[in-house]
């Protein structure tokens, strides 16, 4: 499913539609979303370099990891970002997000040792000003894509970092502006959902068209960390996870897909869900305290029940119990009681034998009108 997501991002949106937007979420229990982010980035890079995509470049807004990390990562994947013609540029919001370093340099307290590189297009000194950030992104994107119809991809590393400095509404405004911009082909960003209030996460999910979340495969029992089994489970959660994707389709339906995620030295691997970890599909049958389903044995027993007033085709006349015990029945009953002590029986003694069970008389006949 990860391939499907990357292809959807590559294809972009239709004319007049907003660009597809992917949100990659995780929690501390399984913090593998940065690997997913890197994977999506490398996939899109390969599409762009092999000319399979309509977008001409990627603008990477680096907030939580240095652009140098990305340079090395892409190099390890075989994409040279420094020497070859540029198709990717990073907006460095990591080195000096609030402009403190440049103030110190200006006042002469420290020396500026940063050599800069062609990969890093520009340094953002004020992450709080999102309007400025928006215009810088668009500027870099236009450089990469060329003017006119060229489109580019925007990748935001860690919107969580952005939310540290600004409000949810300004971040949401930035994302919606990017999505509605003509030249943006697609957009994806990273979010650590347990760092923020549910409303903030909900607002950012609202702005996206696809949600990919990384969840732990195995939850530690009882929340006790000291237990050795739980420790190994937790370690496992740092290497493997469940990758759940929710896609908002154009016709208004929501598609959910699941995969297994495994982090190895070479990168991230996605595999279809193994049969052990079954997908718990949402059942619409309400959860009640009594059992609505029948087990196999119960189904068999139900089929065996002899229904009254139904011919059983076995020659015997059906005996309809009318509440009055005859002498014969009495004897057989005593026998049965001795033989089958395990079965439950309802023994009912009628109050009196005077009452006629099946009376053809109309009870209203007694009335004298």
């Amino acid at each position, binding site marked *: 499913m990860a391939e499907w997501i990357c292809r959807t991002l590559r294809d972009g949106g*239709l004319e007049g*539609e907003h660009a597809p937007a992917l949100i990659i979420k995780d929690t501390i229990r399984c913090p593998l979303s940065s690997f997913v982010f890197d994977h999506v980035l490398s996939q899109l890079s390969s599409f762009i370099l092999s000319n399979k995509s309509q977008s001409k470049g990627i603008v990477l807004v680096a907030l939580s990891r240095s652009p140098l990390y990305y340079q090395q990562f892409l190099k390890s994947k075989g994409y040279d970002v420094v020497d070859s013609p540029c198709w990717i540029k990073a907006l460095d919001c990591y080195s000096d997000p609030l402009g403190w370093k440049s103030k110190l340099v200006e006042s002469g307290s420290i020396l500026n040792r940063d050599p800069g590189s062609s990969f890093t297009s520009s340094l953002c000194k004020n992450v709080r000003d999102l309007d400025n950030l928006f215009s810088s992104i668009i500027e870099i994107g236009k450089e990469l894509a060329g003017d006119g119809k060229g489109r580019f991809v925007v990748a935001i590393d860690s919107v969580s970092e952005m939310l540290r400095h600004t*409000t*949810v*509404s*300004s971040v*949401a*405004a930035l994302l*919606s*502006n990017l999505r*509605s911009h003509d030249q943006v082909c697609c957009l994806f960003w990273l979010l650590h959902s347990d760092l923020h209030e549910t*409303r903030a996460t*909900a*607002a*950012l*999910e*609202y*702005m996206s068209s696809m949600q990919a979340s990384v969840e732990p495969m195995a939850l530690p029992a009882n929340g006790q960390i000291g237990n050795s089994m739980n420790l190994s489970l937790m370690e496992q959660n740092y290497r493997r996870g469940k990758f759940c994707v*929710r896609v*908002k*389709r*154009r*016709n*208004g*339906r*929501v*598609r*959910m897909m699941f995969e297994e995620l495994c982090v190895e030295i070479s990168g991230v691997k996605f595999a279809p869900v193994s049969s052990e970890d079954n997908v718990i*599909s*949402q*059942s*619409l049958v309400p959860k009640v305290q009594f059992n609505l389903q029948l087990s196999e044995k119960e189904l068999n027993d139900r089929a065996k029940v002899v229904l009254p007033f139904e011919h059983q085709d076995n020659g015997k006349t059906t005996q309809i119990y009318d509440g009055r015990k005859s002498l014969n029945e009495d004897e057989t009953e005593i026998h049965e009681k001795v033989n089958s002590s395990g079965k439950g029986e309802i023994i009912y003694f009628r109050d009196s034998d005077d009452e006629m069970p099946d009376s053809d008389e109309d009870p209203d006949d007694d009335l004298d009108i």
Partner: protein
Amino acid sequence: MFDEMRIVKIYIHMAAIRPRSSSFSRSTSVASNAVPGLKHGPNGTMFLSSGIQDLDKILGGGFTLGSLVMVMEDPEAPHHMLLLRNFMSQGLVHHQPLIYASPAKDPRGFLGTLPSVMVSKDDKSRAHESEQEKGLRIAWQYKKYFGEQNSDSQRDGKSEYCCDFDLRKPLERHFFTGKHIDCITLKDSADLTTFHDRCSSFLSQTPRTDGNVIGGRIAIQSLCSPQCEFSDKEWDMLSFVRSLKSLVRLSNSVAIITFPPSLVSPAFSKRLQHLADTLVSVKAIPDEDKELAKLLTGYQDMVGLLSMHKVARINTQVLNVSSDLTSSLK
């Protein structure tokens, strides 16, 4: 866009609608209604159409003039846009004044997505129906139900109360000319005061006491959308909706507001829901869900679920339609 859908049809899955007609029914003939976009309702109210025939039936005739309709969105599905599109198109076809507000930069662009009136194949369907009737031998006591259907299909497309809309074709341009359409963006407003003033001046054009009733429409999309600066000022939004409700009640218009309830705190969501006269919610359905396919017939064509929570009760204590219904959108 909805390339698979043509008309929005709403199918009712729960108990069938049986309009409870009292034994004293006013004999208002349809022909005496001069204004095409409006219809007389019970208890001295007037209705205007929502643009979807099945929804009008569920509501008991349409949206009551002077009521505030709130639609609870599902953040994962755009069905509220469908309701808004039909609502706005119906208003434009009937030349009713319209205000549309949305958090988008260019709300006028949304007008381009409004559906056009379906070209009615009236003659064909009528001939077919009469043929069918000859084959059917209907008991005399049931003929009274067929009488209603016949009178509906005999109307001309233009003067129909509720039109069928073809979602694949955009609305003809000539409906957009005229000064009675206003599009406002809520994006860059720090608060709702300017919009409030626009609404109140719009609503003063269609006051209750006016003899010549036209019926105005206000459509506000995604009020609590996170892009707007005022989205975290919940009390401001609440007081805006409250005063809009009171303004609408004094006028001959209908205001429809869609909002995503998951993006406001639960207390405010409840308050907004209580403010509504008519409350509807739309919900997405999961794709390729085998369990749902077993439970619901027609699952393949369904795109979403529509639930009716409240229906406007103006001048009455008793509703003649049942509320708490869930229907599916196709």
